[in-house]
């Protein structure tokens, strides 16, 4: 499984409230949520994001509440992967569970810049920066996490394993 796209870059502590503000939580519909994704930190995100694009943050990405709406909104925007130095714990779990691939790599999170073009191989955990001609190493996922991602989330994964 591979992903390719251009980068949206953010800083430390991108919290679940800026990823999807609480005022839009009255719906769980991904199509509605994507309209407001990252609205409070980057109001043009929803307009500019394209299928396959990649979000790169720094420390403690996804901190705050346990709302699963946050990774759902990012995924519904077409984002193929989120890379950060570190993720907040519950966001981390929820991302895999809703089928949003995420990678922790301090090197990648530090060196990658806005609008860089990346290619990610989820089997090897390799992140290629096509713009800068650099390669960073993330941790490859074990088989069953890959299966969760390939099944687009835990619900489908469990369905095929019950």
């Amino acid at each position, binding site marked *: 499984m591979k992903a390719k796209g251009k980068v949206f870059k953010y800083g430390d502590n991108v919290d679940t409230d800026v990823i999807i503000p609480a005022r839009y939580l009255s719906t769980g519909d991904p199509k509605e949520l994507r309209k407001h994704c990252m609205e409070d930190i980057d109001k043009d995100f929803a307009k500019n994001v394209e299928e396959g694009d990649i979000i790169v943050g720094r420390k403690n990405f996804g901190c705050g509440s346990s709302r699963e709406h946050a990774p759902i909104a990012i995924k519904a925007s077409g984002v193929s992967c989120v890379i950060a130095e570190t993720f907040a714990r519950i966001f981390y*779990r*929820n991302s895999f*569970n809703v089928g949003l691939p995420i990678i922790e790599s301090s090197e990648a999170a530090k060196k990658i810049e806005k609008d860089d073009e990346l290619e990610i191989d989820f089997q090897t955990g390799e992140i290629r920066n096509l713009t800068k001609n650099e390669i960073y190493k993330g*941790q490859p996922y074990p088989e069953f996490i890959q299966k969760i991602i390939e099944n687009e989330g835990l*619900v489908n994964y*469990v*369905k095929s394993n019950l």
Partner: protein
Amino acid sequence: MGMTMTQKILAEHANLKEVVPDQFIEADLDMVLGNDITAPVAIKEFFKMGGKDVFHKEKVALVPDHFTPNKDIKSAEQCKYMREFAYDKDIKNYFEIGEMGIEHALLPEKGLVVAGDVVIGADSHTCTYGALGAFSTGVGSTDMAAGMARGKCWFKVPSAIKFELTGKPNKFVSGKDIILHIIGKIGVDGARYKSMEFMGDGIANLSMDDRFTIANMAIEAGAKNGIFIVDDRTRAYIQNHSTREFKEYTPDADAIYDEEYTIDLATIRPTLSFPYSPDNTRTIDEVEDIEIDQIVIGSCTNGRIDDLRAAAEILKGNKIDRKVRAIIFPATQKIYLQAIEEGLIKIFIEAGAIVSTPTCGPCLGGHMGILAEGERAVATTNRNFVGRMGHAKSEVYLASPAIAAASAITGKITNPEDII
């Protein structure tokens, strides 16, 4: 490579000889927990997954505690949905009013968690059971749904921070003061992703209730779990509450810890967290005159019998300031009854406090004691974020039951040493 207590428990539940930090594993679960807020969402996901029966009728616990006794129609409907599922699926550990208690006080009391278990709960304070030498952690509703369906959960193996506790805490220094002291030291993300492992000869000086309080707030340092080494007191507690076999895990001599702290409990002072973060701590000696409107004694952090005894010791024969509303909520029915038998409830009522049936109630700003704009409360709960107990401009000061009780008498934040 040596393993920590947590790593050993996870390895065994994943049927692996060894695990290393950051490794992804899938582990067998001994208990899956949900409450009236998270379980209804999880039940919907469970059906979407094609779930029919839960993986084990005795290894799922459903506890309506947050908005119960139902505070409004919406919460009544959520509880109804959960209740019907519990009866339909023949879930043995469903605890309705009359039998219920705050989930994290109830499960150990009912003997549903023992040392060596792996437990997930769709509630962030599921980490409480680490006091018993179990691995337990909070998850999202989808994880809970999958846990109910398959009896398994995926984990990323955590690294750990070791806390070597020595010495004996002074009077009026409880588990709450110790954990607030630690969170103040390492910060709200000081243990992010990690286990907090507690050991050392000072542990012998901590009651089980102190340990529950400490493990309960591991999440407030960002930890995945907090866990105590098992000693005689743990064994006695488990044997008194459960018929289940349990297994003790000790860290390997060459276990690797990211950081190690040695904390002399004798040096810790009564400690509070000021608004709006649990790591914004001060010792009682650093607190100037702060007038208060309410005190709350209870919650999964401090609603156990030790906590009620500590409050009663201070309130006995005293009157609560007439400007202060004092709300005390025992965490379970059993604790409530014990408090009646010990005469604690009489002391509370004579001092001018009210005593509530077990509920999360005011802890999450649900019901039973919401704060108005500008009001201040001293609470024995675990979070003092903006708006946690009511209006966004209200303030919560986290503290021990002794500080809360002393403050109720004077109407301002008070050192219990000044009352007795």
